């Protein structure tokens, strides 16, 4: 399909400037093909896209295909390319890639390329591909110089952005090479053995400042909510107070007559207001009165009541259990067990609370046959596709500008707000900035699902766990089961299953997904068993992990880091937990105290040791793990969404508490040395937190905390027995 000129290269303006070499990576494979010059027909081939451009002035542009939501992709991915191509990092500029999944995507599941920034997958998903690409580019540069100087390519080496011929002392910069070199039709092949050995890394594993940070300290970083385009209107939506409810009627004429109101728009789940100014939109929304249809599934939902009812589900036959792991003979092991354990663990709904409320700017053309969008999203390709589908136009008719995300944490992997903004803009065929208030964002959120987990274990007369049963009950399907498997605890018989119910509440991935509550339950339960057997919680885990050297390594590392054997100050205690997620392994130690009167838990210190494979950006990786620990502790101590009669009971940060500076412990993060492929670091800090705090609480008080979050009420109730 031929695209109209104005859409064709909107994100590739860099290619039009000056001479130079543009390296493109073909879809699927790691081969590199020559793109046509901008404007030529060849360049419209969808399977080709630029990744790297070396300009004659020596500047280098590298595209980032991932969302930047604070996790550092804008630096980490280009670093990988730059390392293998031996680029001078100080000359590298990074831009978001166009949203073309066939070219810039990775394959998360199945065999379809996707541009999704989720599941701690960005670095590990792109690492092999980008290394090969960088090495191929370096090879082209070397070959070009070998031809020019008529020397064997084997005599040439590279220094940052420079090819060197030591024998003759000649040197030539990448910028100079770009003046004469041609990108071959067939890029040279590079196999893994030709990549740099990690010991020779100059950029990977070294302190590289994040390139998005300067703009984030002077206010110039552009988030979608900051975008303004000519003729832009402001949109707000009143959504059903009961999730997924539908509007019946509203005071349309009254609202439309208000100053500055351009239109009102009936949507499936709410009423949209479009106004000339943001303040007019807010004001009209206050005046808007909507009657909602009855009969919505969630209208009688009471989360606390349902959670109690969940306890009757495991083993009752009310709900068919879906097996996740079935191994060995669990009932036989229980029948001959020396000791048997059973505990229920509970978790409330949790909200993302990303600091930038959801928003999007969408501009549908007057004819309705194309659109432009500015969005902060973890699912760029899905968002672009959703705009196209909503309008019934081709994917390529959407000019999509990814913006920085003011936090994602999984919430921005859904694109409901992008579809909403498209509907609003389409209603007026003008640019509309849709803004969710904080209350909108919280109350029409998509929560980490509440759940009940029943754990049972059988222990033989030698103190070995011989059978393990874990049943998770709740709504949310796969959201509930992530992290429920215990790949590093090799109990001989296991029965792990889930029981699904449906409440009609909107649910979503939340940083670390099910690992947050599943690893809490697993670790807290192991802690209970260790305690009953009179074993030290660290030593007990050591015996469980003896056959897993990498796991044992992080466990031992955190014990050293936290000086596990040392005495804690009076009134303090330490607890420990282990978890794996996204290919990474981690162990954490929390040191806490409890104010017995108020029931407040104070976490003073948190140590964690992480095996994340090769660490591409050490400082940023530390920040990621630290951020995960803070978010994990915050959810373990404070965060709770509850619903009564289908209505969310919290509305803003005053009653949905997230961790503050004064509540944040001193956090120490250590990475164990590894030459394994990089693994995920965005989430691994989360699942080690709640278990470690619960373990410390038990060590301190002898009581058990089994319901997330550990609110002051629950802490007091636990201590009263």
């Amino acid at each position, binding site marked *: 399909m031929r695209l109209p000129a104005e859409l064709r290269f909107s994100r590739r303006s860099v290619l039009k400037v000056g001479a130079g070499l543009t390296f493109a990576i073909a879809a699927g494979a790691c081969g590199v093909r020559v793109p046509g010059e901008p404007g030529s027909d060849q360049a419209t081939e969808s399977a080709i896209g630029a990744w790297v451009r070396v300009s004659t002035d020596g500047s280098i542009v590298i595209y980032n295909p991932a969302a930047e939501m604070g996790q*550092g992709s804008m630096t980490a991915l280009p670093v990988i390319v730059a390392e293998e191509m031996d680029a001078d990092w100080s000359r590298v500029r990074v831009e978001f890639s166009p949203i073309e999944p066939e070219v810039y995507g990775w394959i998360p599941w199945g065999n379809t390329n996707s541009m999704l920034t989720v599941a701690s997958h960005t670095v590990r998903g792109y690492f092999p591909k980008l290394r090969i690409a960088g090495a191929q580019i370096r090879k082209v540069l070397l070959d070009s110089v070998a031809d020019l100087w008529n020397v064997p390519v084997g005599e040439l080496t590279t220094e940052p952005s420079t090819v060197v011929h030591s024998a003759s002392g000649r040197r030539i910069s990448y910028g100079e090479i770009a003046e004469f070199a041609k990108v071959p039709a067939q890029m040279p092949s590079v196999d893994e053995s030709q990549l740099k050995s990690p010991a020779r890394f100059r950029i990977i594993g070294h302190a590289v400042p994040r390139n998005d940070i300067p703009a984030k300290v002077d206010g*110039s970083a552009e988030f979608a909510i900051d975008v303004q385009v000519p003729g832009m209107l402001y949109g707000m939506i009143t959504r059903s107070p009961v999730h997924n409810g539908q509007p019946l009627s509203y005071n349309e004429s009254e609202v439309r007559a208000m100053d500055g109101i351009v239109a009102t728009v009936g949507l499936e789940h709410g009423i949209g207001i479009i106004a000339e100014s943001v303040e007019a939109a807010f004001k009209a929304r206050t005046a808007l009165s909507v009657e909602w249809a009855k009969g919505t599934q969630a209208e009688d939902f009471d989360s606390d009541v349902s959670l109690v009812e969940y306890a009757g589900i495991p083993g009752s036959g009310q709900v068919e259990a879906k097996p996740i792991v079935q191994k060995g003979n669990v009932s036989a092991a229980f029948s001959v067990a020396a000791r048997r354990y059973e505990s229920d663990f509970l978790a409330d709904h949790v909200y993302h609370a990303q600091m930038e409320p959801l928003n999007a700017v969408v501009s549908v053309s007057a004819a309705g046959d194309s659109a432009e969008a500015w969005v902060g999203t973890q699912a760029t390709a899905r968002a672009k596709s959703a705009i196209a589908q909503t309008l019934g136009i081709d994917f390529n008719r959407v000019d999509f500008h990814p913006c920085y995300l003011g936090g994602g944490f999984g919430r921005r992997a859904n694109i409901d707000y992008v579809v909403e903004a498209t509907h609003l803009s389409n209603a007026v065929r003008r640019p509309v900035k849709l803004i969710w208030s904080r209350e909108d964002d919280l109350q029409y959120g998509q929560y980490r699902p509440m759940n009940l987990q029943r754990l049972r274990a059988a222990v033989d007369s030698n103190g070995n766990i011989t059978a393990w049963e874990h049943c998770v009950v709740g709504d949310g399907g796969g959201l509930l089961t992530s992290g429920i498997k215990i790949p590093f605890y090799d109990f001989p018989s296991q029965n792990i299953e889930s029981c699904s119910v449906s409440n009609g509440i909107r649910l979503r991935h939340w940083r670390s997904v099910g690992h947050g509550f599943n690893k809490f339950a697993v670790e807290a339960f192991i802690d209970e068993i260790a305690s009953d057997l009179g074993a030290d919680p660290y030593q007990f885990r050591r015996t469980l992990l003896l056959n897993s050297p990498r796991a044992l390594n992080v466990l031992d590392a955190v014990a050293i880091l936290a000086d596990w054997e040392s005495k804690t100050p009076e009134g303090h205690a330490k607890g420990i937990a282990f978890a794996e997620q996204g290919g990474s392994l981690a162990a954490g130690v929390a040191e806490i105290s409890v104010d017995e009167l108020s029931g407040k838990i104070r976490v003073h210190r948190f140590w964690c040791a992480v095996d994340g494979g090769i660490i591409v950006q050490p400082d940023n990786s530390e920040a990621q793990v*630290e*951020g995960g620990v803070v978010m994990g502790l915050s959810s373990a101590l404070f965060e709770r969404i509850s619903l009564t009669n289908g209505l969310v009971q919290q509305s803003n*940060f005053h009653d949905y508490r997230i961790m*503050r500076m*004064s509540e944040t412990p001193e956090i120490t993060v250590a990475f164990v040395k590894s030459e394994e492929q990089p693994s995920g670091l965005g989430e691994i800090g989360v699942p080690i937190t709640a278990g470690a705090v619960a373990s410390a609480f038990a060590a301190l008080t002898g009581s058990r905390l089994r319901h997330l979050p550990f609110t002051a009420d629950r802490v007091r109730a636990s201590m009263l027995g």
Partner: protein
Amino acid sequence: MPIAFRVNGELVSTDVAPETPLVWVLREHLKLSGTKISCGTGVCGACTVHLDGDAVRSCVLPVAAVADKTVTTIEGLSADGSHPLQVAWVAEQVPQCGYCQSGQIMQAATLLSSNDAPTRDDIVQHMDGNLCRCGTYSRIIRAIERASKEGEQ
């Protein structure tokens, strides 16, 4: 009746309704989008600006309240990102998503203007109303300590 005030040294005037929160006037009318909106109720600190030198939450401050006064936003803290706090923020690689950081820096600036050698407790007490979901708190503390130390030299 237009409301006139000074922003980052410039005299501006607006004819929006007087109850309009300052944050929207700054962001949408004056295109100073470095000041962020997050809670809209004055409880998270993302919208913090200076009003005659004091840190205020611009999301709950009616624009009428700043008439004839002086407002400073992150864009006006320094001309080129060279305020000691901004330099320290980069040195400590504080921001992750970055959305709360304008407010954090503006809040911190009023600490340093009244206390050039704050203790860790001073810092925590002064900054405790500014939320950061990415969990950059420890780096914020380090950056403020760095800025105050470098201010001594």
